[in-house]
């Protein structure tokens, strides 16, 4: 009897231990740090709400948030449109369908660092293949990564290329759940391709669209590897993402308390955006 009493706890112990060590403790410790100054090697010092007031006056942090939002504004629509168009294409009966599906998914499983370095070579101003091609066909060079007005757009395109395969798979699943009888009925009524897509496909894959937007948003807010490797946050801090800024505060300057504060605020911001998206995108149609 006694053995039975502890058995359930034993079964859930791996999850509980993982939760306590890797979720509950870090979150609680981060919250504790937001009220303290700590450079890892010196003793923790209580500073009250100084980190919070510093955050609201930190222009660089707000610039980083703005940069991240700029990235999202370009990245999410691109991701949605391309993923949906490719999924629609791959859902048809075409030759080498399996090959194309695997090819589009390939960048997702390749290391982000490798992909980023390759794109850095492609987009280089003087020696990049894209600029060489542009010059050969009579156009001027474009400062893909060195022009502050263009750099974030270049990173958004690269990130879309890297991640689109995953969302293609999600949309493919969504498209295959639409009952063919709906399309057959619409065809009998004389509906065009666009009408079928607009009035049947889109409403029925709404949950998938919602999921893709949410995942893209969370992924987009976590933008780090691309600017860290491609631009280091430059030129002129135009690609300094929020996570990159938090990383710099923590591991370059060892402002652990301040970076924890930024991290907390940023998590709340993501949560707010997701709630708003849920309200406006998710429908019960």
């Amino acid at each position: 009897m006694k053995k039975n009493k502890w058995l359930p706890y034993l079964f859930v112990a791996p999850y509980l231990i993982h939760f306590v060590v890797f979720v509950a403790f870090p979150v609680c410790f981060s919250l504790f740090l937001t009220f303290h100054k700590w450079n890892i090697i010196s003793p923790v010092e209580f500073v009250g709400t100084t980190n919070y007031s510093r955050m609201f006056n930190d222009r660089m942090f707000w610039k980083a948030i703005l940069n991240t939002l700029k990235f999202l504004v370009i990245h999410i629509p691109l991701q949605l449109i391309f993923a949906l168009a490719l999924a629609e294409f791959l859902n048809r009966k075409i030759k080498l369908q399996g090959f194309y599906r695997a090819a589009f998914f390939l960048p997702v499983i390749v290391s982000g660092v490798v992909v980023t370095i390759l794109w850095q070579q492609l987009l280089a101003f003087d020696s990049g293949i894209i600029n060489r091609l542009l010059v050969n066909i009579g156009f001027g060079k474009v400062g893909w990564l060195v022009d502050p007005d263009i750099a974030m757009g270049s990173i958004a395109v690269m990130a879309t290329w890297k991640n689109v395969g995953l969302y293609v798979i999600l949309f493919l699943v969504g498209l295959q759940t639409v009952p063919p009888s709906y399309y057959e009925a619409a065809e009998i009524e004389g509906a065009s391709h666009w009408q079928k897509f607009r009035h049947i496909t889109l409403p029925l894959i709404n949950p998938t669209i919602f999921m893709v937007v949410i995942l893209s948003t969370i992924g987009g807010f976590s933008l780090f590897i691309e600017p860290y490797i491609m631009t280091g946050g430059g030129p002129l801090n135009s690609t300094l993402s929020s996570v990159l800024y938090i990383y710099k505060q923590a591991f370059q300057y060892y402002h652990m308390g301040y970076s924890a504060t930024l991290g907390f605020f940023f998590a709340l911001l993501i949560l707010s955006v997701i709630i708003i998206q849920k309200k406006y995108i998710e429908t019960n149609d």
Partner: protein
Amino acid sequence: MSNKILLAFIVLIFFSCERSVSEQNGLLFWSSNNNREIEFAKEFTEKWNKEHPNQMVRLQPVPEGQSSEEVILAAVVGKTTPDIYANMWQGSVEMYAKAGVLIALDSLEGFTEFITERCGKETVKEITSSDGHIYQVPWKINPIMTIYNRTFLSKIGTTEVPLTYSEYLAAGEKVKEDSDNDGYIDKWLGYTSVKVIWYERFFNFYSLYIAASDGGSLVKNNKAAFNNEHAVNVFRFLQKLYINQYYSRERLSAAQDPFIAEKVMTKWTGPWEIEHSEKFKTREDFDFDFSPMHVPDDHTGPVYTYADPKNIVIFNTCENPQVAWNFIKTMINREGDKVFLETSGQLPRRQQLEKDSLFSDYFLKNPKVVKFAKQANYVKGVDNCEVIVEVFDIISQEYEACVIYNKKSPEKAIEDAARAVNVLLGNNES
């Protein structure tokens, strides 16, 4: 059955702990994980252990990590620091000293006299912490100089190496070339990293600033000390290099070295470039040499530069710092420095190195290193400031805005950087 497993587990833990306790005998010495430095450290550790069987030293290369700085930081937090660590960047020492994890070496017998004789009074002054103590042993340096391609130089019709700002800029006009006629420059006067990351400023702004100001400071008495004509002139000089397209704004990570590819005539770099260029040169008669950092036209006297110093520290976990210092002394005395130079190809921080007969054989065999040895008499490290990394980062931000993108005047950029540094130092003080 389960009790037996539990017992076996406890025994296993006991023995694993026992092993680590037994390993803690003697001093633990972490060298850098560069093969040549390991070889050097091994030779001296073995020699010491043979002569001092009661004061054994255990050598271990610094454990692998993303960077040695991170590993040291983790060791400090976990209180698993070695007794001796050789290869600490001078700028990191103040932070550890303020945290109270380093031994004040000037309290050890014979330290100050030995170091003053080896390195000179100026170096001793440079490494003295803001609290008046010394927490680091000046060990090795890699002075930053200008490497230039002689073939390029003769192509522009001169054998005179450009040494001043005006001469260098004039050379830039002759060197820049659009060799494939696509409307874009593909031969440049030089290249220096455009990355904003703080340490990249060692190889452009900071070395040039030290040269222009004869070893000036960035931070003095806890205030920014670089809002002066030297810093402004350096920014203006660098800005002109980009405005006139003598330098490329390209980020060249993972691309071929433009100096080796002969796309640029010059580069600001350290002595490691000698071996690198010899190893990767694409033609046998690739001809290069070194000159000092560029200076303002009215500059007189010797040209200073950044030393890129790496030093040795003793952590406060060391139970016998005097023995640790006695061991370090064997590595950095004249004989030790000679072996270090021969093994690693790096310069020990010893005054008048090039005039010492003990080292002359090495310099005869490696004539290109002589210029660095002579330069070693006119070098500076970094100021002892706990937040020196942030100071460099602030300067880097302004460097990008002014020098690379011409969005600010040099005066405004330096003024803004100095103001931000003063705010930072004020915050840091509170």
